[in-house]
């Protein structure tokens, strides 16, 4: 699978080209010749775009930012797997040495109804922001800084919350899921706060509201096949989905059976 790192390689890229959201798209083949095998896949796209611009063609639009695997902006499905052939790696950290010389590399955008393609390989993932706005936060006490150790948290709980907080919100879980389900993302966001004491006051409303928003935006449901965690560049575990399911059902019961508040007049009926 991995080519020698010293010899330059040539590949053909089969890229999804779509001028705009409401226009049809198609695959177009482009040659990418004499590439340094140690360049990243995104750098290869830069090279191809340079050539396209020279001959007056529209360059391939693709999303990228940090190019070091932490921002979650890159969003390519490479040969049928979000973020390419490796495990726990984003598209930007996929290198040309991972591909065979003279191979055809198919590059597509993340596809989901709530992630409409804006252009070519760029999907609009603002649906994730809407889910975050529905409850992916905690209300904090402002004012003077709290004493550093005022809220003791066991190490294993902090570690687990940090595992969930590794999520960079790239959307690979949605892209990999045959149902375009966002449960891995939502479960990570629900758990990173729900595991910590600071997240407790809004724990129930958070999971109820975030799941309601996820459903409203048109993401699919989970069939427990775990394609999401297999594609996740941060290796978020699908155990968080089980945790979210439990949390959601429990929150539904708790909110249904909480004591009815006293009448507006202050009680005494």
């Amino acid at each position, binding site marked *: 699978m991995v080519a020698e790192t010293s010899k330059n390689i040539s590949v053909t890229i089969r890229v999804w080209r779509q001028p705009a959201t409401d226009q049809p798209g198609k695959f177009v083949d482009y040659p990418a010749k004499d590439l340094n095998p140690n360049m990243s896949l995104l750098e290869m796209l830069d090279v191809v775009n340079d050539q396209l611009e020279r001959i007056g063609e529209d360059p391939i639009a693709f999303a990228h930012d940090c190019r070091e695997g932490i921002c979650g902006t890159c969003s390519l499905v490479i040969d049928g797997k979000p973020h390419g052939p490796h495990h726990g790696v984003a598209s930007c950290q996929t290198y040309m040495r991972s591909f065979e010389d003279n191979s055809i590399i198919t590059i*597509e955008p993340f596809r989901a*109804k709530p992630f409409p393609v804006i252009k070519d390989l760029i999907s609009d993932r603002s649906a994730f922001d809407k889910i975050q706005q529905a409850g992916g936060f905690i209300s904090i006490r402002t004012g003077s800084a709290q004493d550093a150790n005022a809220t003791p948290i066991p190490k294993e709980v902090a570690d687990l919350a940090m595992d969930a907080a590794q999520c960079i919100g790239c959307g690979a879980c949605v892209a990999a899921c045959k149902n*375009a389900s966002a449960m891995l993302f939502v479960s990570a966001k629900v758990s990173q706060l729900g595991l910590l004491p600071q997240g407790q006051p809004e724990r129930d409303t958070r999971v109820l509201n975030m799941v309601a928003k996820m*459903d409203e935006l*048109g993401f*699919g449901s*989970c069939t*427990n096949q775990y394609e999401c965690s297999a594609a996740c560049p941060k290796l978020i575990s699908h155990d968080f989905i089980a945790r979210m399911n*439990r949390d959601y059902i429990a929150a539904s019961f708790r909110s249904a*059976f909480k004591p009815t508040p006293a009448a507006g007049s202050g009680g005494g009926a």
Partner: protein
Amino acid sequence: MSLIGNLFTSSIGRKFIMAITGLVLVGFVFGHLVGNLQIFLSPDHINGYAHFLQGLGPALWLVRLVLLATVALHIWAAVVLTLESRAARGPNDYGVKKWLHATWASRAMRWSGVIVFFFILYHLAHFTLGIADHENFKSNFNWTMQHDAKELGITLAKQGEGVHDVYSMIFIGFQNPIVSIFYIIATSLLSVHLLHGIESLFQTIGWRNGTWACCLRKAVTGLVVLYFLGNLIIPGAILTGIAEPAAGSAAALKAAGQSVTAPAAHN
């Protein structure tokens, strides 16, 4: 936010309905198999057991209605979730598709479920309603109880009582290769369905994590293999002639080319 609303309209709520109804149905199919394995004992056992169940009257109908409602909810949740999930991919599907982690059983859920549904319809028409193969339906054969049939201290049928000969109906039914092979294929698919389904319901309810996922998979696989073998052995043993009908049963008389006694009137 209402509980019923959450259960029936949210994705996780519907999955929860799918899991709980699935659990009930798993309980039913295992109990059903254990009951059916009495075919390898004397006809008194399965005929007395069937006579007892038939005699439950309103209680029998209550159980039947609960099971029907359970199946209906299970299928409803499956259909609604599948349609939503299909729509969620959006206008264009991937040019290259690749499975990363999904088990083969999980990929077969939808079509194995559909085939099992049609099998259940046939199974009810065959052994419960007597629409398919009416000539060999249990009510056309009579069995006189040789001994009292007792189970867990409850008398199921008394000695000398005339009951429907379920034993012969099953034997004659499974002596037909097409019927037997269809039953074997359908129960194999049901086993595949259970292989993913039982494991999956633990994840949906939230009773699964990486620590005991391995044990869970082994336990589910073991259980499903037992279920598969149990279902294979009934039509398999009858079709191959390893199991022969007990002397005096309608199935044995029929196999010997003799006329079968007319059903006795009994209530």
